């Protein structure tokens, strides 16, 4: 099926401070989009707004998946409808084992109508699949017995996010700086893992500062965010250009957005 995630004229505020100021973006199933932009431009905000973070208020615009109103859904309903985000900073949940967390998550996402307290997917079946996926991602089985992100290194957290992506098999995934804080080997492994999961099976929005993740996952589209708007869209070559030359050209070409970006950055540092 040809799924479509459509973001139209999206305005998002945190408190009374506007962050996103009219974002338009359409991602089709099987496409990979790169989202680049300087610090404070609103990239992570877009991801969090797509997932429905309670601290981010949509003041205008819409997000739809196959025509269904995503904004009307709670975060868990969004997950169950097939939207995923790999967090830049995943939360630790002490005392809860990765395997138990993932079994519950996988059950809920695969059975969107599951009611609380209903059966989880059978343990044996789940373990087998988890083991296969972990082997594929070259992860130690011991990982599944550790508490969710508790005491994980930066690299382990990112790999745990990719494992979750592999298990939940969403229709659309936002990867928020899944490559940041990783050394070259870890980035290569992460990139290959994402490629292995099969990006043709999802629509991907990769938020990144670097081009490393994009080498293994070449984007069909590259979007540049500045001051809470997508100011430019191009192909893979745009990602390469931004990586090599930075954002100077973009900042000069869009003075209004640049001013907004500076303002947002100043407020962010003030907080």
């Amino acid at each position, binding site marked *: 099926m040809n799924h479509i995630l459509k973001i139209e004229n999206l305005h998002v505020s945190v408190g009374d401070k506007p962050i996103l100021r009219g974002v338009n973006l359409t991602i089709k199933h099987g496409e990979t989009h790169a989202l680049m932009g300087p610090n404070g431009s609103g990239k992570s905000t877009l991801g969090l707004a797509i997932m429905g973070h*309670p601290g981010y208020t949509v003041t205008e615009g819409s997000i739809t998946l196959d025509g269904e109103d995503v904004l009307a859904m709670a*975060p868990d309903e969004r997950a169950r409808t097939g939207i995923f*985000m790999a967090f830049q900073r995943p*939360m630790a949940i002490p*005392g809860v084992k990765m395997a138990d*967390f993932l079994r519950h998550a996988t059950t809920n996402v695969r059975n969107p109508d599951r009611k*609380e307290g209903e059966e989880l997917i059978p343990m044996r079946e789940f373990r087998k699949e988890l083991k296969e996926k972990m082997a594929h991602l070259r992860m130690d089985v011991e990982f599944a017995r550790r508490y969710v992100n508790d005491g994980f290194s930066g690299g382990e957290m990112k790999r745990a996010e990719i494992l*979750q992506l592999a298990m939940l098999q969403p229709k659309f995934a936002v990867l928020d700086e899944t490559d940041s804080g990783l050394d070259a080997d870890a980035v290569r492994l992460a990139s290959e893992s994402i490629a292995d999961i099969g990006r043709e099976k999802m629509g991907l929005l990769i938020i990144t500062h670097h081009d490393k993740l994009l080498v293994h996952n070449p984007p069909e589209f590259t979007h540049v965010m500045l001051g809470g708007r997508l100011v430019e869209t191009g192909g893979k070559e745009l990602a390469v250009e931004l990586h090599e030359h930075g954002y100077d050209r973009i900042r000069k070409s869009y003075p209004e957005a640049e001013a907004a970006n500076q303002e947002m950055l100043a407020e962010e540092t003030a907080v």
Partner: protein
Amino acid sequence: MTTTSTLTFDAAGFEAFLASRKDEPQWLTDLRRESFSHADAMDWPARRSEEWIRTDIRTFQIKKFAPPVEATAGDVPAVHQLRDGVEPGGVLETYDSQVISESLDEELAAKGVIFGSLERLCREQPDKVRPFLYTVVDPDYDKFAALHAAFWSGGQFLYVPRGVVIEKPIYLGSTLSDGGTDTAHTLIVLEDGAEATVLHECNSANPEAAGLHMGAVELIQKPGSHLRYVNVQEWGHKTYHFAHQQATIDRDSQLQWTIAAMGSGLSKVNQSVDMVGEGANCQVNGVMFTEGRQHLAYHTQQYHRAPNCHSDFLYKSAQQDKSRTVWRGMIKVDKVAQKTDGYQRNDNLVLSNHSRADSIPGLEIEADDVRCTHGSTTAKVDEEQIFYARCRGFTQKEATRMIVSGFFQQIFDRITIESVRDALAAAIARQVREYE
């Protein structure tokens, strides 16, 4: 059932209570009379005293409760959570502290194990009971302790002879009727090298039941003995719960004591483990989980009276709604207790803006070569944790439930008895609600 009696815990009530004791030995009646005269002379705890400054008992009116009388036909236990999947070696059920059923495996009886109603065994085997009764708990500690000593009834007694190992758990079930009173006394004695596991659960006829529990627990361990004692307290949420629970453990003995406190409207419990012989080792696991307007105050003491003993107390508490827990811990080390290794910790998860956790760790150390550590943490459920879990398909409630279970996991990891882990997990899951 609720009695229509107007008797209460005064002189007339005490005489009526004594008259209802059938064939009670004189020494016991004397003990009761002495305790009653002490209780009568004592004031209720003063609000200003350090022990009661956080626990307000002004709403408690003892005259609303009657001393326990005989059990009535048709009295049945409320629930059996700790028995699920367990083949017990002995079972004793009480209703308003009156024993309604008791049994012990013949094989254990043949080995000299004595188990059953404490009241009955005071009559039938005084030579086994009398040397131990009230050797641990102080009946003059406060008015509640003295009233209990005067009015205790029914109760449980377990005696395990030297070297006898009881593999199957001993099960104690206590049920309190709506408006009823439980004054049961629990006395457990393990002779040298003996081993036992005791599972004790306390429930009310319904979760909202009013009632009064005024109890005492005495655990006596001789050298090299090994006891696991589990108490799941789910008294009704309008029940007053006053208890003195104390263990004396001798040389090279081991005690694992697990308390899960979910019930009662107001609890004030003093728990102490006295290590009186070299190399004694105790681990105490406490879970408190409160809701509504519950107020649970647990005062724990780990008292090192001999060298080379190890004590490890961990209390984890979560508070919902307008509830409050008070944990006050004390590691006490006598001058002779060199090479003491003492640890105490209390972690709190505050689940509502209106709930509260008081955590007061304390040390009193007179020896100079010891290692004592204590710690206390208080935190709220992190909204970002909830959001993260919801992004993985968990509902708000499922996410909260999982985070709360995770918080208690550290205690579960220390409990080796499966039925206890299951009962605790179920009790916690029942109590968790949705937070907005």
